Structures are given as structure tokens and as C-alpha cells.
């Protein structure tokens, strides 16, 4: 059955079709949500909400974009909404449990774990923009549209997030943004 047929069947309430759509996109959705919210338990909750909402809103899916794109947008929205509704939380108090990547581990796994920990330690706003731009490949215009912020704000947040990532990944470097700025 093609994806279009699955969508049509899911619209009619066919739970097997919904399950097939879920199976095809679950990892992608979970990944972006997990990286945006920075917490395993919250990511599970938000991902589930995103899927339930997606099936509720499936009648609004008009096929202008691929289902994966539509679902990605919905999942990001759900994640950002949750962060906004919960307010900012400290990320430095707990060491996050890391989920295994879908691919087999290789020599880069250690670096990936360091990156994941650093991402989780970022403030929510920084992390959201960094994940959407550097991980998910969205443009600043797209991020601005998704988050309801100006393009310049997205750029500024990204630059601060990258700088913070460097501090987290290489804390030994002596200079700070303020002290080392020059005219």
C-alpha cells in the first residue's frame, strides 16, 4: 500500500494504516522532538502527543508537502509549544540518559554522545534554533516562521548557541565572549 493510500485509510480511522505511518516515521519524529526538548521522558510524551494530534488533524493534510515534512512541522510545533508552556528548566542538574542511535555504533559514537550532552545542556531557546538549523537543516526564514521570531533573532540565537556549545565541548579555553571581543 502506498503512503497516499495509507493516509487515506488512516483518515477513515484505519488504525493499521496509522500504525504503518507511525512505523515509517517514528524514529524521525522522535529524534527531532528529543533533540528540541532535551529530555527523554518529555520527548516520549511530546512525541506521543504529536502523533495523536497528527491523526486528529489528518483531514487537514492536503498533500502540498510530503507527509514526512508535514509531520516534522507538527512535531516541532508540539515540542516548542511544550517548552513554552513549561518554562525554562535547568539542564545542568541531571545527566541525561542517552538513547542508542538507529545506526550501528562506530568510532564517532563518543563524539555523538558528547554532542548530545552538550545539546541537552543548552538553554531551550538556543537548543531549539541550533537543532532546527544545524541538525535539521532549516533556514533562518523557516525557523522564523516556525517559531514566530524574526530572522535576525534566529541568527543571533544560533550564533550564541554555537558559542555555548563550544564552551560546553571545550571548557578549557580561557577567553570568553565578552572579554575577548575586540574592536
Amino acid at each position, binding site marked *: 500500500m502506498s503512503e497516499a493510500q495509507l493516509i487515506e485509510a488512516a483518515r477513515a480511522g*484505519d488504525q493499521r494504516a496509522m500504525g504503518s505511518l*507511525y512505523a515509517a516515521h517514528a*524514529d524521525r519524529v522522535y529524534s527531532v522532538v528529543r533533540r528540541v526538548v532535551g529530555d527523554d521522558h518529555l520527548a516520549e510524551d511530546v*512525541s506521543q502527543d504529536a502523533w495523536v494530534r497528527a491523526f486528529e488533524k489528518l483531514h487537514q493534510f492536503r498533500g502540498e508537502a510530503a507527509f514526512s515534512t508535514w509531520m516534522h512541522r507538527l512535531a516541532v510545533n508540539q515540542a516548542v509549544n511544550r517548552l513554552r508552556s513549561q518554562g525554562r528548566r535547568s539542564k545542568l542538574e541531571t545527566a541525561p540518559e542517552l538513547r542508542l*542511535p538507529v545506526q550501528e555504533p562506530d568510532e564517532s559514537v563518543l563524539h555523538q554522545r558528547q554532542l548530545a550532552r552538550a545539546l541537552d545542556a543548552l538553554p531551550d531557546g538556543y537548543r531549539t534554533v541550533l537543532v532546527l538549523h544545524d541538525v535539521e537543516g532549516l533556514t533562518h526564514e523557516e525557523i522564523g516562521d516556525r517559531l*514566530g521570531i524574526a530572522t535576525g533573532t534566529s541568527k543571533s540565537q544560533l550564533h*550564541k548557541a554555537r*558559542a555555548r556549545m563550544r564552551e560546553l565541548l571545550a571548557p578549557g579555553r580561557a577567553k570568553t*565572549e565578552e572579554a575577548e571581543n575586540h574592536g
Partner: protein
Amino acid sequence: MAEHLAREQIAALLDEPDAVAGGLAHLDVCADCAGEFEAMSRTRMALSGLPDLRAPDDAWMEIRSRLPDADDEPHRMAAPWWRLQTRWGPLLAAAAIVVLFLGGLGVGRMLAPDQPAGAAVEQEAVPVARDEAASSEPADGAYPEYLRSVADLRELREGGPSYVEIAADPTLAAVRLTRLDALIEASREALSQAPADPALNDFLFDVVDERASVAGQLDRTIRQASMEY
């Protein structure tokens, strides 16, 4: 250029070589900053290549348990969202706040010229919304009014030209964008009063999403037209 570049400046140079005046020239003569640039560049590359994570194995069972029973009501998923809600209070209050701000901003008439129901939002729903916005939970007797507010709000959102109509007449995209901009403005005003309200956030994101979609469609149409020209 003296001293070192700040990390934020180096971060900006990754995407825009002109972001910092003299920045690239500085990287040529400063090994420390050049090293930072290389490190940030490697981090960016690593982030873009992160593999997908595995979704929790039991997640589908949880999701499935929250879906309506297909055998009992096969078309239920296609019902409008406000009929699917079981916790009316917060959702309706959020919608009412948006309606209130639509009225306050005077955008109801602007939105409504092709939509008589929209005018009703401004004239009828706002007083109810104003009363109810003062309390966190609407009184039972106000539910029908809230339902009307939500329905009117939804109609404002869903009314206007369709994608097919916009594709046939791109000028309609501007009409749609105007409606959506007004809804976004009203939603943001409302959010300033209730920034943590999930329903309100959800509504705003829906509208922002659609605006991005319509703007993208308009952009593609313009590009196509200019290529044909």
C-alpha cells in the same frame, strides 16, 4: 584587528563570511581563532550528520490507546478539533481570548468582508469572551457562547480562499496572508496575557504554519511567473 574574535563572531562567520568586518582576514593570521573556527565547523558537520534516534518500543501502544476505536466510529478522526476536545475549559478560554483581541484590534471587519460569520465574532462573541476572560474557567451556562466563539474563530481561520483557488488566482494569497497576519497579531496579543497557555500556543503555531505555507506557495508562483516572463 587586535586580540581575538568572540565565539559568537566566529559562529557567524561559519554561515556568512562577511558577517564580521575583517573576520576572515583575522582567521588567516590568528591560529587560535582559526582553530576555534575549525572546531566549530567540525561540530556543525557532526550535528548535521547525527543519526536518527530510536523511538521507544512501547510508544505505539500508548498512542493507539489514545486513538478512537475505528470500529465504533470510523470517521471520527476527521471531526473538527474543537469537537474532539474533552477538557473544554482551557481551550475555550484561549479561543475566547483570541476573539477578544481580534475585537480589540479591530481586525474582525477586516477579516470578515467575505465572511459574514466573522462579523458575528466581533459583535457577539467578544462581550462574552471579555466576561469569561476574567475567570479561568467558563461558567456552564456560557458553554454555548464559547462554542460559538470557537466555531467563529475556526471559521475565520479556515475561511477565505482555498489552496486550489489561490493556485488559480495568486492575488488571493495576499488576501489569505492578510487574514492570517491579523490572526497571528491577535494571537500574540492574547499570548502576552496568557503566555503559558498551551491551547493558545497551539493555535498560534497552527496559524503561523499556514502562513508559511501560503507564503511559500505565493513565492513559488512568483518565481514561476518570472521564469515564464
